């Protein structure tokens, strides 16, 4: 399915639903078998593989994403620690990190899945990429950094313009201008960081001309840690004008590392759920109840890829699901994110990066370092 994502995304609904269900149900049976912690939860809910077979994917007991922040993380694993190859977390500083542990098989599956989606939605096979996000070199366990970094294998040239937690807008612009004419140029980063570059261009009154083939790809929250929200439409208008690209090529992605899922926007700005995942939207007050398509509720994601732990996740995000055909030609589930669940901390990667950047910037202003030299981070706050 991963290797034929283009055709899998165009299957008739019934066929695709069946393929997805088969994949997810097989994994449910596997985790039910291998994971005693999860099995107990299933038994408490009166659910076993036969129940799921007869009642459908909605019957699968979900793990609240908050569990991945807990100290007794070993309980979640369906495989022994020895098989864990990659640990990634969804938050930088501040707050407790949410950690997803992937065995070698899952690591491979997720890498191939993302690669297939990048090829399907972006068709990148060269060109230059400006990364306005933390690099995995500095943050080897940050999920957001890993997800963006995978683009480097497809690009001919990649440049990170975030050093430590300091953004270098001048350097970013210089990189984009330098590549002009010689190759296609793309921009990757969380919305607020790309927005920072746009504001820098507005302030300096400049407009770049990236051209038609260029993409802006965002991932991470639209709500800032200050509480203000970046408006997606206005962001797209500003980006299109300031970077000189088509609005259709400004694409947001939605995902959470615990679920292995990345939903990518097509040119019509619909976020497509890959066919190896199943999204279900739940009643905010009673998450055991599914709400109909088009109705707002809590997003739940079940993965058909993850053998490390039962990646049947109840998120803390509120959104809407639709299913059917999209103007882009793809069929399947589409989701839109509305807001964080009330009571959930605003705590995705991007928000924490932003908070940190503002802290460092303020600190840099205080000590009045020379312009150009990136500020050193304050020392580790022991105690």
């Amino acid at each position, binding site marked *: 399915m991963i290797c034929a994502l283009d055709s899998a995304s165009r299957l008739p609904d019934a066929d695709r639903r069946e393929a997805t269900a088969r994949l997810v149900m097989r994994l449910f049976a596997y985790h039910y078998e291998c994971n005693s912690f999860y099995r107990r939860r299933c038994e408490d809910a009166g659910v076993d593989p036969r129940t799921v077979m007869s009642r459908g994917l909605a019957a699968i007991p979900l793990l609240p994403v908050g569990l991945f922040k807990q*100290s007794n993380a070993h309980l979640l694993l369906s495989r022994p620690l020895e098989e864990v190859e990659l640990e990634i977390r969804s938050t930088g500083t501040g707050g407790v990190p949410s950690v997803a542990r992937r065995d070698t098989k899952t690591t491979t599956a997720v890498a191939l899945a993302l690669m297939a989606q990048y090829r399907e939605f972006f068709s990148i096979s060269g060109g230059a990429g400006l990364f306005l996000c933390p690099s995995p070199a500095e943050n080897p366990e940050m999920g957001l950094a890993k997800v963006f970094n995978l683009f480097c294998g497809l690009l001919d040239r990649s440049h990170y313009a975030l050093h430590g937690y300091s953004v270098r807008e001048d350097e970013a612009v210089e990189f984009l201008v330098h590549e002009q004419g010689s190759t296609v140029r793309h921009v990757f980063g969380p919305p607020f960081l790309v927005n920072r570059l746009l504001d820098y261009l507005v302030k300096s009154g400049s407009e770049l001309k990236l051209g038609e083939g260029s993409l802006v790809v965002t991932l991470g929250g639209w709500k800032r840690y200050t509480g203000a929200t970046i408006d997606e439409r206005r962001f797209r208008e500003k980006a299109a004008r300031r970077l000189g690209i088509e609005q259709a090529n400004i694409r947001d992605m939605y995902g959470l590392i615990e679920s292995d899922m990345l939903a990518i926007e097509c040119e019509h700005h619909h976020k497509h759920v890959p066919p190896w995942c199943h999204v279900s939207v739940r009643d905010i007050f009673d998450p055991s109840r599914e709400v109909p398509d088009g109705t707002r509720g809590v997003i739940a994601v079940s993965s058909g890829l993850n053998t490390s732990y039962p990646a049947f996740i109840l998120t803390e995000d509120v959104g809407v699901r639709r299913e059917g055909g999209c103007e882009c030609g793809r069929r399947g589930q589409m989701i839109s994110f509305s807001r964080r669940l009330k009571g959930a901390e605003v705590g995705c990667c991007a928000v924490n990066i932003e908070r940190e950047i503002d802290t460092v910037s303020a600190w840099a202003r205080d000590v009045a370092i020379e312009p150009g030299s990136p500020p050193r981070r304050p020392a580790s706050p022991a105690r």
Partner: protein
Amino acid sequence: MARFSDEIVEHFTHPKNVGELPEPDADASVVDPVCGGQVHLTVRMGDGRICEARFVAYGCAAALGTASIVAEWVVGMGPEDLASLDEAAVTQRVGGLAPGQSHCARLAMEVLHALADDLRTGKGSE
């Protein structure tokens, strides 16, 4: 070398001394600002030595395993013992750390030193 030492696998899978001691004689918390790992240690003293320790930790498996090992290790130590431990000592005690896990040794060392400080200057010396 395997990704995780046998000791870390054992302590991650069966963490010992998890939790917080009520009204501890000393405690220490450390956050790794880069990787987000956190360790909180509470201890009870007797005869100038640690006689009981509990930990709560968040982060990568090596950090969790290391924290559990440390909470067992410190029993019987006094503040000077804690202060003398460095990253190399931690690394050896946990059975080795793969490249990329070395921050766990630093995190553990920092919590041990912070605990020593607390014992010498804080509640521990009251």
